[in-house]
């Protein structure tokens, strides 16, 4: 406890609130940074894939032809590292079929055609009030509400609320860095719902039994820092820490490094260095779940980028097709070249606009040919810029060469699994080598070889 506080104070004092390496891409957040969050009207149909979170996909509960109300559970959590899925609108299940998934594959999904003229009122309070709940009950309630990390990876939130046996968590780190270019979802949530963020922090601190929380926000969001600071509850030890603007400041391990000065060992969890990191959007989602009693059935999405006619921050029902969201934002311009889900550094390009918004979708970014012009890749000139950019001190040049040679086992020895695919190396490479794609290839190739060997 004391050591953490000391470390936080030291970083405060030195004002060196950053980590080593990393890159400075243009943040291009001006497109949506000032636009208040709006609610998007319900589409005619929603599609809910059963796999929306890290861990086991949910187990189906409904059948074709069933009628569901808004907030009804349509799939049950399958095991502890899994969450249920709830209908985000009232309607009729027309089909349970294979449907394009935002990760580029196809996955089993529930198609629901919405009731016309329905007021879409959710069932009253599915989630209990949090007052008087024991930590275990809060964990169960958060799981039943289907809350996952809204920062992109969609890791079930309740798992983080129950740290592994034998570790002592002493600091709750709230991740409001939002270091990806273009995205402004967390920014707008912090500006518009600061009380909700603080309420979520209160629930998490109670459940984890920690008495100190730090909210890390990059300095390019002064209005968010101000709003959070102004609404800080008097009875809790919560600090708002402005962070240097640098990518990937919002990566879990980088944030821990910045705030506490500690490094998470390879293959370990943040809990092993006494911290739990939670995205600010997920914190707000926990608060919303306990406030309203509804499960997680909608989320804030930034629809932005130069190829979107009217960029916006929208509350979108989970399962809305990208096509409907983009249509509501005035559609795409003629020179659109690429649609990316998530930020442009780590996000996944989308081949199909029928894919739905899922719980982990932070943003829909439309890029034009000017941003995505395919450039020829040249041979590596061994300049070493990727080594200077890599925030986890890997050797991307070596890993890239090994991937091209198909030597995935050697990549593993060169610590491929510590790579979080942040894309810093690809960003700085003067030869335009698609390094982070090669690492994605290495990871999938390694998994495939292990499956084949088994």
């Amino acid at each position, binding site marked *: 406890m004391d050591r953490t506080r000391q470390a936080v104070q030291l970083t405060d004092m030195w004002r060196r609130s950053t980590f080593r390496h990393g890159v400075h891409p243009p943040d291009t957040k001006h497109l949506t940074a000032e636009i208040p969050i709006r609610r998007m009207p319900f589409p005619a149909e929603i599609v809910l894939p059963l796999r929306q979170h890290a861990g086991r996909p949910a187990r189906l509960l409904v059948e074709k032809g069933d009628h569901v109300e808004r907030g009804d559970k349509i799939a049950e959590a399958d095991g502890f590292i899994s969450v249920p899925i709830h209908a985000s609108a009232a309607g009729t299940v027309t089909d349970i*079929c294979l449907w394009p998934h935002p*990760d*580029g594959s*196809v996955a089993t999904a529930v198609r629901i055609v919405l009731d016309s003229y329905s007021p879409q009122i959710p069932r009253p309070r599915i989630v209990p009030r949090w007052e008087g709940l024991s930590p275990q009950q809060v964990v169960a309630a958060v799981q039943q509400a289907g809350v996952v990390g809204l920062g992109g990876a969609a890791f079930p939130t309740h798992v983080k609320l129950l740290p592994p046996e034998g570790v002592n968590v002493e600091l709750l780190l709230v991740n409001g860095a939002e270091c990806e270019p273009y995205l402004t979802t967390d920014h707008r949530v912090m500006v518009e719902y600061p009380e909700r963020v603080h309420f979520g922090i209160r629930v998490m601190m109670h459940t984890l039994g920690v008495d100190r929380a730090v909210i890390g926000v990059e300095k390019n969001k002064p209005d968010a820092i101000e709003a959070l600071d102004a609404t800080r509850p008097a009875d809790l030890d919560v600090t708002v820490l402005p962070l240097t603007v640098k990518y990937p400041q919002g990566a879990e391990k980088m944030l821990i490094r910045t705030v506490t000065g500690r490094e998470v060992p390879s293959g370990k969890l943040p809990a092993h260095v006494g911290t739990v990191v939670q995205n600010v959007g997920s914190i707000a989602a926990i608060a919303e779940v306990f406030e309203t009693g509804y499960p997680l059935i909608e989320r804030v999405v930034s629809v932005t980028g130069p190829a979107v006619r009217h960029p916006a921050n929208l509350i979108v029902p989970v399962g809305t097709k990208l096509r409907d969201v983009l249509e509501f934002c005035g559609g795409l311009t003629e020179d659109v070249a690429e649609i990316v889900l998530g930020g442009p550094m780590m996000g996944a*390009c989308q081949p199909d606009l029928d894919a739905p918004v899922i719980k982990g979708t932070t943003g829909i970014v439309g890029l034009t040919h000017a941003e995505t012009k395919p450039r020829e890749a040249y041979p590596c000139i061994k300049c070493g810029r990727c080594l200077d950019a890599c925030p986890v001190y890997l050797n991307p040049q070596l890993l890239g060469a090994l991937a091209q040679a198909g030597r995935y086992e050697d990549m593993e020895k060169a610590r491929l699994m510590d790579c979080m695919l942040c894309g810093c190396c690809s960003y700085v490479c003067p030869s335009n080598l*698609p390094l982070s794609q*090669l690492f*994605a*290839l290495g990871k999938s190739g390694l998994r495939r070889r292990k499956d084949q060997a088994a």
Partner: protein
Amino acid sequence: MDLPSLLTPVAILSGVGLTFGTLIALAHWKLKVWEDPRIDELSDILPGANCGACGFAGCRAFAEAAISGQVVPAECTVMGSFELEEFAVTLGVEAGEVEKRVARLLCAGGSNVAVQKADYYGVESCAAAVAVSGGGKGCAWGCVGLADCAVSCTFDAIRMNPFGLPVVDPDKCTACNDCVVACPLDLFVLMPQQHHLIVQCRNLLDGEAATSVCSAACNACGRCVADAEPGLIAMRAGLAVIDYERIELENPAAIARCPTNAIVWVEGAQVFPGLELAESEAR
């Protein structure tokens, strides 16, 4: 220089040489492992590709297995008929016969029939495309067409056709399994060349959902199930599945009414839609 001082080093060196020479000779006599001389002889006849198609660790391991009688010479599918006979004569056994197996592609969705949803720019490899967002083809199960299999083929048996589908030359294919391992979508299977009936599709969608992404997709209409001998073909999860345990029941009637030509009767190399046309144009 006087003679005695020259003799000393000569004597020492000769002594050392003699001692170690004796030791080596002793070690050779004591630690010698007898090896069948035929192993080297047979290994020389084998192609030396170490492709693994026979199921052994390499050509030498196959030679050892052949001497011990575990395999018949014909189980090396890479040898030509001349080498095969030489191998059999050297070993003094019959060459034997094995069923000729070839790699078959379970996709007919070339760029002429399959819908392309998006263009892919990036590492020119199927595995890399699949690792990010699937290469942009409308059908999530379909051939990506970036030739990982052709690159992996040791015997140059795979060529990409003008529509981006790999065509296997059955004469060159040795069923070594390399393309099966290389394909990130598991579209290759090894099967005996005598099997003529193949469903060239792995799309699990049915009806219009399937044909809207590829006009050569199996739309699970069930006509082949009705036309074939009962029990040969079954419809499972949006795809016609042939029971190869009962393949002796096959006859060309099964493919007659297929609306998309997803099920085909193959003699020799696989034929994909539009290929005849492309070949005639080339001429």
